[in-house]
């Protein structure tokens, strides 16, 4: 049986950054397993720019960002095996993999880093009534077809959901000669970045219909059109607002779900708010020696944040291997999201074993203007940061100094205070 110090599941931006960081910590015997035929993960199909402003201080496209990390992986001689699917991870960190060359193989790992990414919410989960014809794709599937296979699935397009991939695909389909009739968004605000609304919709005169959704899909074999209607504040269709949009393509950009089937089978505890593992400050799950980072942990909006987070997971995994055991659980304190905060990553901190300052990442539950982010331990205020605006589409990152945390012995709360 092959044995590794660290097995990294997934060779996307999270997996590569985790591997690089673990190697920088002196971990020699590590390996990345990637199910696709190359490193890079979903970045390979994200050919648009806007990546890397934090990490490389320049604006890169997805494949360029991926290639920079892939080069580091190769320069550091980090082994990676592509077209290799991880089928199972046991609590004892026996990893079962499948590949053409080696068949089904069991491998022993001292530590495992989960970096499997996320998937898109499909039409079925959205319960959109109507037919199930050809021409309905998730935005990411269409992106893969257009950018990686050179196949443009349609000419007249409607997009449901204003997630970033949907916005990016509105522009992409337009550049490929299609006409995008509208982007409908159920919420009264977009879940995508502002810059994408301007550069992908406004630039091309594509209307963004807020508080609208698709209520019917027409066409038995091939998509013939969709009915879009306005919704009220309870997301109920407002009668009389239905409008038919003829189209041959409907793209869905209605949210991403961390892909945690392997984690669940391994017994990793999942946070129902993020759909990702519950982790501590070292991004270690509740299974000893199993770490998580990137979109499998919680869905990010910036790959730069993924890389940074994954580097911490790599560092912690290296520390775990060197130490040979998990942190002392008696020093664990909880981080509790309160008013206006949907979740936090991490969900707990081991104050006795801190490797350094602690990042707390979270999203807010709605749009907040002129407010403060307040982090407290009991009545003791650890952080107070003023903000002009907070939106759910932006992941927030607050760093708490190691020294401040070491003396904390009660649970920590994170909340939004409105003025």
């Amino acid at each position, binding site marked *: 049986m092959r044995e590794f110090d660290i097995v990294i599941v997934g060779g996307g931006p999270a997996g590569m950054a985790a591997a690089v960081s673990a190697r920088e910590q002196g971990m020699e015997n590590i390996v990345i397993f990637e199910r696709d035929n190359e490193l890079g993960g979903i970045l*390979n199909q994200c*050919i648009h720019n806007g990546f890397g402003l934090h990490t490389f201080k320049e604006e890169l496209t997805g494949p360029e960002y991926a290639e920079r990390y892939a080069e580091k992986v190769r320069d550091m001689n980090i082994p990676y095996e592509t077209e290799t699917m991880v089928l199972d991870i046991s609590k004892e960190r026996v990893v079962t993999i499948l590949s053409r060359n080696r068949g089904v193989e069991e491998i022993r790992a001292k530590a495992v880093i989960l970096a499997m990414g996320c998937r898109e919410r499909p039409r079925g989960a959205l319960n959109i009534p109507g037919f199930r014809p050809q021409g309905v794709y998730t935005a990411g599937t269409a992106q893969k077809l257009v950018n990686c296979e050179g196949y443009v699935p349609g000419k007249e397009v409607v997009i449901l959901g204003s997630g970033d991939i949907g916005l990016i695909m509105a522009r992409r389909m337009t*550049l490929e000669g299609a006409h995008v009739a509208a982007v409908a968004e159920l919420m009264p605000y977009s879940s995508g970045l502002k810059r994408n609304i*301007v550069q992908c919709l406004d630039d091309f005169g594509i209307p963004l219909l807020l508080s609208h959704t698709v209520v019917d899909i027409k066409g038995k074999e091939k998509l013939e059109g969709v009915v879009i209607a306005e919704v009220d504040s309870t997301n109920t269709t407002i009668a009389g607002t239905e409008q038919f949009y003829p189209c041959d393509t409907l793209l869905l950009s209605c949210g991403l779900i961390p892909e945690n089937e392997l984690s669940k089978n391994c017994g990793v505890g999942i946070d129902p708010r993020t759909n990702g593992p519950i982790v501590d400050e070292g991004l270690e799950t509740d299974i000893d020696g199993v770490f998580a980072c990137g979109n499998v942990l919680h869905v990010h909006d910036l790959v730069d944040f993924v890389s940074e987070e994954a580097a911490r997971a790599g560092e912690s995994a290296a520390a775990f291997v060197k130490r040979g055991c998990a942190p002392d659980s008696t020093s664990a304190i909880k981080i509790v999201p309160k008013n206006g905060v949907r979740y936090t990553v991490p969900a707990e901190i081991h104050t006795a074993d801190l490797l350094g300052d602690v990042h707390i990442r979270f999203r807010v539950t709605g749009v907040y203007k002129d407010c403060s982010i307040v982090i407290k331990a009991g009545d003791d205020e650890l952080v107070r940061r003023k903000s*002009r605006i907070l939106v759910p589409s932006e992941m927030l990152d607050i760093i708490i100094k190691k020294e401040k945390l070491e003396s904390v012995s009660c649970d920590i709360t994170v909340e939004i205070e409105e003025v």
Partner: protein
Amino acid sequence: MTRNLICINCPMGCELTVEFDGGKVISVSGNTCKRGEIYAESEISNPTRTITTTVISVEGRPVPVKTAQPVPKGMIAECTAAIKAAEVHLPVKVGQVIIDDLLGTGSQVTVTKSVQ
């Protein structure tokens, strides 16, 4: 003339009203900070965008490319058409130049992903 813009510098998304004459900005209102003013200025005087797209290689595989510098926003359609028309043979390496000066914009078009 006036135009309404949404500032893209931060999630605030300030709704800007710009008063201008030709390419010259007279006043900007609705912004919360200096960055809004700078954004409005460039959007009015010379709005530019980076184009990212694919070129289908002679061998039939899509090759992702970008304009190395932003090009005038008004030229997106013709620039995209010119990029699409470029002849590319595999293999290509990231950073490889496939068009030296895109329609006189001064921007190169470069490959963003190595394709075998």
